[in-house]
């Protein structure tokens, strides 16, 4: 990802780019923060864009980082895949300082990533994006029959649920027996 005034990503914390110069009234220079996901790729995001995330916004407020401290300590989100974090960062940048429209056309189109995206967005507490994502999930089944919904939303049948439950019980029983045996061995 190329460096812009709004965001950048690199293997190591990037040099902060110069804040855009305004021809009009002098503005307070925008502060930037850094985040990385599971792939350790660091994304540089403006504070304005990060305001969408209640979680990151809270972290920024609580930590009170200076620009240098922020650069040295990117926020780690090890539970979020790099490409998902990239999508989230892109969305935040696109919607920085703008009111979010009722229908968002900038949503990620890859349906196969939607599940991870929903979890990430929920974790990062980005309320508007979460609403859009949930709507996307709902739209997947619009006008579908029960059989089609079962397939699209991957709903196991009752028989599959029962089999899975039996399997889980069996596994739990085995684990309990193993623990008992181990405890008895320790006692000897």
């Amino acid at each position, binding site marked *: 990802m190329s460096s812009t005034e709004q965001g950048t990503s690199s293997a190591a914390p990037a040099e902060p780019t110069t804040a855009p110069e305004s021809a009009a009234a002098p503005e307070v220079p925008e502060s930037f923060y850094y985040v990385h996901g599971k792939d350790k790729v660091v994304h540089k995001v403006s504070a304005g864009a990060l305001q969408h995330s209640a979680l990151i916004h809270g972290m920024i407020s609580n930590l009170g980082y200076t620009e240098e401290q922020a650069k040295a300590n990117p926020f780690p989100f090890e539970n979020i895949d790099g490409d998902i974090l990239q999508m989230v960062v892109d969305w935040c940048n696109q919607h920085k300082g703008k009111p979010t429209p009722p229908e968002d056309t900038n949503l990620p189109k890859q349906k196969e990533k939607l599940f991870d995206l929903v979890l990430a967005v929920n974790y990062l507490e980005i309320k508007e994006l979460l609403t859009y994502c949930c709507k996307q999930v*709902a739209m997947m089944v619009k006008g579908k*029959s*029960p059989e089609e919904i*079962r397939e699209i*939303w991957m709903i*196991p049948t009752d028989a599959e649920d029962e089999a899975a439950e039996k399997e889980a019980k069996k596994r739990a029983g085995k684990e309990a027996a193993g623990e008992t045996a181990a405890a008895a061995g320790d006692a000897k």
Partner: protein
Amino acid sequence: MTDQRFPFLRLPDDLRLKVLQTTEHLEIFAFSFTSKKAYSIVQDLRLPISHILITIEKRQPQLIVRFGYLWVSFLWRLSRNNKRMTNLNDLPARVEVSNRNGMIPFIWSDQGKSIAEWIQHLCSILQSEKCCGADFHVYRNIEFDIPTLRNVFPKIGSIDIVFRQEQEANEHENLLAQNFLKAFLPDVQKLRLEHVRLGEHFSIGDFGMANLKELKLSYPRNLRVDDLLIMNAENITIAGANLAEISLRDLNRFFKLWMKGSNPKLKGLKVWWETNTIPDLNVMLKGLKADEAEIEEGSVMFKIRNSNGVLAGIRSQRLGTVVYVEFQKLARRIGGGGGGIEALGGGIGGGGGGIGASERMEVESKDRRWWRWNRRIGADGGGIGGSELVEVESKDRRWWRWNRRIRAGGGGIGGSELVEVESEDQSWWRWNRRIGAGGGGIEGSEVVEVESEDQSWWRWDRRIGGGGGGIGGSELMEVESEDRSWWRWNRRIGGGGGGIGGSELVEVESEDRSW
């Protein structure tokens, strides 16, 4: 089939809920059929239904769920060769599901469920207690026993039993209709019988004694006025009555018996006939000693009173070939008094040369659907010449209007007229009223704001500035209604020059708005 996949059940509970909150009702129902787990998730949603209507009819049994103005319809097709439903255990060949008028319905499979199981599935999701209605069509070759009906259907608030028109009743149909009635009558508040033949399908005793809120008999046969006398329902409608069975003379007899104390629970009776003859209303009113009161232009209400002092109004209208008679119990009367305003809620003290007399004639609310009143303040002294709040009326609470005229008096208010206040859908309303300055009277008057958000509350302030020789000052401080179950106000009219000395309407309060 689409190649999109989403592991919905792997979402945490709160996210599942969030997705389902943005899913349309039709798809939520479809989801509920996918597995027991999905069914349980949908049950926990507690969908906000407003009404369910189940129609048990031979070829197209149907269930319609209403969510306010939205709805979903399930129509069970029994087979392609127009097979009739014989009992609730029949499996539908397909289910046509729709949620918009004119749309091509979605076709669902039977989901391995009989019609009874479909009804149970849908009603158990919807927790439909008390908001469910059912139409039962009575016909041959269908079997319903009472335990099955009670087991399959939820508690039903209103039922319609529809008999075949102009065909001889047979034993099977009579038994079937009896089963419908016996299964649901204990919980039913509204009962409608269409094309019922009394003495054949039912005797009047089968349903007449039930404590119904509403009983409607559409095109009944063999109904006599004596039958009305033993009916216990609060509101009775006889639609398409047979003039040979119930005539205006019969109604006259009924009203006379009501005046003697019969049918004490009756709040309203509506009867209409189709006839080419112009009825003689004098036959209906003969000997009732009714007071005549015009309520609208061209419509006259005749007021009668029973032995317990209960007031009722009778109205009649002719629209084309339809003749319509309405009897409506009115609320108690609060009489007016002498020099001051004597009785109005908590009492209003008399003023010097001010308002001569005041009478709140009627405030009435039928299950909160409409209410009206007349209030007259007689002219006196040098104060307000005359004031009349003629009518406030609301049909099914959708609109209301009134006229209030304060005629110019000596030194009083120059002129004031609040001509019309009207509210469509009642979701909110506000107005400004300005009364221009009169001669030596009130300088200015303004009802600043009346506002109602979803009808849960409303209040206003009204200030009438002091003028020359007129009313010194008047302030209607507050009218407020929490969930519309009660309301009160304070009105203070300060002493002025030659105007009303002092007047205070301290409190008017209505519990459940029934009076």
